[in-house]
């Protein structure tokens, strides 16, 4: 490892607090597999979006009032009177959607390439923790504008906790700070919504620390065998990440500047009214698959448990997946189940947005069943029974065996 710099000031600081050495080690020299494809860009993209959310959220918080009498109007004041307020608001609202899109792709990358398998189990768990924190943050954030969907979404979801036997009702009253969603609820949601992103930031630090301990996976799913397999993170992946940030910003801009309300719900432009329930209470799109799972079970407690189990079972994935091979590139049978699982998640999302009527109920139940069958039955079974394709010698080795080589080369590109 070479020194961070010959500069005297840098050395003076570094001797007392080795920040420059740390950056040199973990962001400049960090040996990264040279065959990473663009699906590996979504981690840094997620970090980028987190920074955007914290910045825009901070400046919004300078003008927002977390009181039921003022919240809705304060958001409209931001939209109309605060300089660039409309931009801050639309960046923040659409940024939340972007954050989930990026993170979902990031997770599915992990599923396809076996990034959750040993030795990356803890890395995977920290990632799941981040996603749970994101969901809590987004849920509370959506309540803050105090529109119809804010209020009723909060009412429906907090009411779920009453399903817990014995203490359920008390927990709900405790969450609300009252006997229904009202000002105490709004106020505490604002405090927590402000706090959690910084908890996420801390979890991201742990996530990157865990990553750097076990080093990055790669599309072939095989371990790094020699320094020839890797290249320094800077400048190769820094510029690649900057490029994908540019592409991301373009997609983000399409939403922010031309379709800023496409991912939202018009009912949230109606001030909250505890006396009027909207015709269709729908959560934001990124919660729809979970909402579908929740509604798939006729029993209230069952639905709640299954919804949390849908994320909990992901934590067991390192053990549920019995395959010795990480990457689906070399798993000809499981690969198709992966795509089926992805489609199933889209179906669940679609069902979550539909009213609770047939045929959506039946489809939702089938899709929910398949979700768990895939993780609990298919994944272990196929892992045992499947004959994987032969793995290449190493990341650098150009040729392995005839057929596998060309496919490996094609799939790794």
């Amino acid at each position, binding site marked *: 490892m070479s020194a961070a710099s010959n500069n005297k000031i840098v050395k003076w600081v570094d001797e007392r607090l080795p920040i420059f050495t740390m950056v040199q080690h973990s962001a400049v020299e960090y040996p990264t597999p040279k065959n990473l494809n663009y699906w590996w860009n979504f981690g840094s993209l997620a970090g980028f979006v987190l920074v955007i959310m914290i*910045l825009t959220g901070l*400046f919004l918080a*300078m*003008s927002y009032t977390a009181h039921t009498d003022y919240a809705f109007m304060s958001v409209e*004041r931001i939209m*109309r*009177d*605060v*300089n*660039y*307020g409309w*931009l*801050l608001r639309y960046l923040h609202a659409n940024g939340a959607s972007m954050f989930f899109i990026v993170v979902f792709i990031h997770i599915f990358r992990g599923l396809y390439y076996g990034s959750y398998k040993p030795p990356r189990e803890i890395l995977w768990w920290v990632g799941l923790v981040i996603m749970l924190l994101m969901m809590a943050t987004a849920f509370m954030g959506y309540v803050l504008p105090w529109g119809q969907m804010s209020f009723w979404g909060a009412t429906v979801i907090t009411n779920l906790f009453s399903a817990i036997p014995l203490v359920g009702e008390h927990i709900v009253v405790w969450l609300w700070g009252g006997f229904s969603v009202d000002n105490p609820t709004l106020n505490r949601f604002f405090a927590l919504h402000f706090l959690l992103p910084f908890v996420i930031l801390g979890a991201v630090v742990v996530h990157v620390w865990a990553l750097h301990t076990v080093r990055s996976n790669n599309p072939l799913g095989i371990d790094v065998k020699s320094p020839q397999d890797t290249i320094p993170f800077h*400048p190769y992946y820094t*510029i690649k990440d*900057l490029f994908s940030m540019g592409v991301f910003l373009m997609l983000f801009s399409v939403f922010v500047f031309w379709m800023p309300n496409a991912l939202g719900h018009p009912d949230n432009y109606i001030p909250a009214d505890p006396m009027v329930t909207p015709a269709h209470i729908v959560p934001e799109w990124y919660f729809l698959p979970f909402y579908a799972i929740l509604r798939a079970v006729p029993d209230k407690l069952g639905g709640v448990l299954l919804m949390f189990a849908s994320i909990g079972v992901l934590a067991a994935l390192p053990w549920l997946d019995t395959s010795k091979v990480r990457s689906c590139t070399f798993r000809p049978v499981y690969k198709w189940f992966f795509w089926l699982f992805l489609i199933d998640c889209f179906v669940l999302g679609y069902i979550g947005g539909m009213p609770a009527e047939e045929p959506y109920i039946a489809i939702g139940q089938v899709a929910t069943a398949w979700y768990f069958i895939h993780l609990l039955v298919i994944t272990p079974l196929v892992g045992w029974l499947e004959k994987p394709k032969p793995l290449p010698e190493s990341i650098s080795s150009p040729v392995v065996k005839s057929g596998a080589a060309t496919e490996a080369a094609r799939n790794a590109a």
Partner: protein
Amino acid sequence: MAETANPAHGPSDGETRRDFLLYASTAVGVVGTGLALWPFIHSMNPAADVLALASTEVNLSAIAEGQAITVMWRGKPVFVRHRTAAEIEAARSVNVGDLTDPQSDEDRVKQPQWLIMVGVCTHLGCIPLGQKASDPKGDFGGWFCPCHGSHYDTSGRIRKGPAPLNLPIPEYAFLDDETVKIG
């Protein structure tokens, strides 16, 4: 960073192209970041509704000679005093050179009978007394700040005490004989 030597063009050409892209990307990136920061900074400047309340109109017809009113303007008190001839005379007979903050009375008013100034002591920000008839007016017949004993004269100029400057004159204009717009 290893050089890709290209015999046809020579190392300097490849270097120039690599450097160009590096400099161009960096420059555009830095410019973009700066442009992106501006909305955040500007969002902290006064919003449209705050700017709209930045001026106040005052009806002068209710203020008799020798009386004063206090109006709120931009969150601060503004003293509007209908001065008597005696007060004007007292203000004008002072040797400007002797003042802590030299300023002639003519420079502080547009119409001599109307004295309009921000009623915040220039020492540490208290509101001087002297608006009401029953208030102490200090040694110079104008205003007296009870916090640290600054005395202002009938033109609102500091004459005695720790305040360094005269009471500030805000921007104002007479819309007609009965109305003045402050700010």
